[in-house]
């Protein structure tokens, strides 16, 4: 399959080394400052969103609520650092940093805006626009597990260890689905560079966004990202009702806070990835203006703002889900990861690969609207199948009904007749699953 030349990638004029170094350092400082402050503010945002969803007000005392993260940070710095006697101190200290830094450095490759043709040459709006950007992300996100596992292990505490074990099993399981879910995206882009993926999605506006052309992959990625970041409904590693606080039970003060920040940092990173891979990255929908030369500073600014809006939407989505869906049982989690997501993602790779080959044989250009439209139609069909055919007690196990045939028939009759309550008869204890 021949790929179109990527204008943005190839048209970059050569930069001098000095410009490159200065630009990179400046980008690093800007990105990580905004990122860290943003993550701190997200702890406030989460509390506010949770409050609003529960008809409350949320924190509103310290500086009208805005200074709450600062107050929390100050409190955590002032608190006592505890080191349990039984803990293995070097790893115990290292673990919070490991889980936090991995979330942080993923940002290095995410392109957050259109390149800027500055007076000193073209500057890419990513700290390091690696040609293997996507593989880098997969590699780094795997390292993130270590922080949690090592925290659980080095604490030398049963609950911490259980939390660490759970997280390793969960994150390894879902990483497979997550990787598989992104293969259709890579198939369409024909490249693992994040810039190329964004570039492809910019072709015909939202119709060519991967959320439209590979919807199922997006859904799988979404679910797997929740599991990867240990957010509800997959927060089993820290399930406070079962494991006290899981892997960070033994941590206090700023070391605890690091795990907390890492959770939000992971969330932002996963949201940014979702925006990049499936929602057109920094592309402004419906206009081609932002994708063509000249690349002015204004375009960079607007695309950057749009990228952050997209990212923040997904951060909100994380919070929205957290305050809607209850935690999974452990067996449900594993069943969903291995029996549902993995087979679906594998099948979906085959479907998308087939569709791509089919469209190529039919002679549609990869950047035409017919190409994206055909894929979109296919995905609408698959989503309908997923939601209305497959999602009938087959996705999460408690939805299975265990009724004997007679009882089932009666319940159905009652429901059909719109009677509010079924005549209650004790179900035969030896009732078979009728599924």
């Amino acid at each position, binding site marked *: 399959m021949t790929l179109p030349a990527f204008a943005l990638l190839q048209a970059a004029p050569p930069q001098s080394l000095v410009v490159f170094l200065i630009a990179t350092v400046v980008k690093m400082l800007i990105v990580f400052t905004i990122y860290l402050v943003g993550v701190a503010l997200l702890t406030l945002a989460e509390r506010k969103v949770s409050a609003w969803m529960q008809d409350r007000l949320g924190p509103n005392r310290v500086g009208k609520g805005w200074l709450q993260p600062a107050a929390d940070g100050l409190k955590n710095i002032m608190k006592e650092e505890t080191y349990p006697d039984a803990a293995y101190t070097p790893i115990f200290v290292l673990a919070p940093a490991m889980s936090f830094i991995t979330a942080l450095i993923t940002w290095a490759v995410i392109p957050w805006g259109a390149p800027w043709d500055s007076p000193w040459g073209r500057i890419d709006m990513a700290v390091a626009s690696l040609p293997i950007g996507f593989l880098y992300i997969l590699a780094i996100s795997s390292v993130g597990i270590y922080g949690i596992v090592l925290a659980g292990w080095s604490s030398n505490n049963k609950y911490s260890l259980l939390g660490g074990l759970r997280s390793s099993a969960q994150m390894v399981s879902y990483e497979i689905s997550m990787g598989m879910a992104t293969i259709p995206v890579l198939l369409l882009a024909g490249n693992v560079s994040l810039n190329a993926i964004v570039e492809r999605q910019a072709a015909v506006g939202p119709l060519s966004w991967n959320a439209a052309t590979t919807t199922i992959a997006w859904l799988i990625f979404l679910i797997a990202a929740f599991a990867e970041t240990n957010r509800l409904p997959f927060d089993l590693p820290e399930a406070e009702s079962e494991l006290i606080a899981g892997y960070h039970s033994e941590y206090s003060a700023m070391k605890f806070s690091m795990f907390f920040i890492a959770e939000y940092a992971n969330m932002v990173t996963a949201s940014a990835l979702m925006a990049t891979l499936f929602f057109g990255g920094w592309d402004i929908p419906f206009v081609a203006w932002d994708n063509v030369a000249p690349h002015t500073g204004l375009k960079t600014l607007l695309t950057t703002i749009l990228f952050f809006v997209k990212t923040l939407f997904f951060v909100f989505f994380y919070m929205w889900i957290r305050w809607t869906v209850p935690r999974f049982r452990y067996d449900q989690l594993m069943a969903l990861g291995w029996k549902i997501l993995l087979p679906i993602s594998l099948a979906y790779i085959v479907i998308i690969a087939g569709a791509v080959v089919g469209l190529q044989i039919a002679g549609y250009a990869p950047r035409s609207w017919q190409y994206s439209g055909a894929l979109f139609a296919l995905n609408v069909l698959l989503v309908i199948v997923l*939601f209305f055919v497959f999602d009938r007690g087959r996705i999460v196990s408690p*939805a299975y*009904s265990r009724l004997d045939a007679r009882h089932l028939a009666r319940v159905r009759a009652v429901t059909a007749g719109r009677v509010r309550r079924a005549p209650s008869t004790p179900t035969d204890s030896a009732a078979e699953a009728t599924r």
Partner: protein
Amino acid sequence: MLERPIEQTSYLRATLKGMGLTLKHMFQESVTVQYPEEKWSLSPRWRGTHRMLTTEDGKAKCVACGLCPTVCPANCIKLVPGEDEQGNRYPLVFEIDEFRCIFCGYCQEVCPEEAIHVGRHYENAEYSREGFVYDLERLMAQTHPVCEMWDPADPKGE
């Protein structure tokens, strides 16, 4: 185990429905009362901190009959009666331990002089346990409105 037909069970659609609900609540008005600034209006039958009513010349209405310590189920009222030259009884010591009190309001119901009352008031804070033993002076110094006990003729308090 949920007992329902398989075609009614779903996870994705149910989740979407739940998300709709939480989103709807996000834009609903919050029910929070900003406590120190805003306060609930208490029911007229609220039974809180006690108050001893006084006569027009500033003396406690109490005649030290001893009914309230007798009826008190928590045994929190301490009463030592005294008698003046005219033979009028008055309380030498009248103390209520607000910690022991269960705020049943029997003392108010039983009082023949309508002297001791439970009040529509709940904000009590002290630096010591002893501070919660209210003596007669303190009970007389309270200014909050008193409880209107349940009236059988007007059961809903209208």
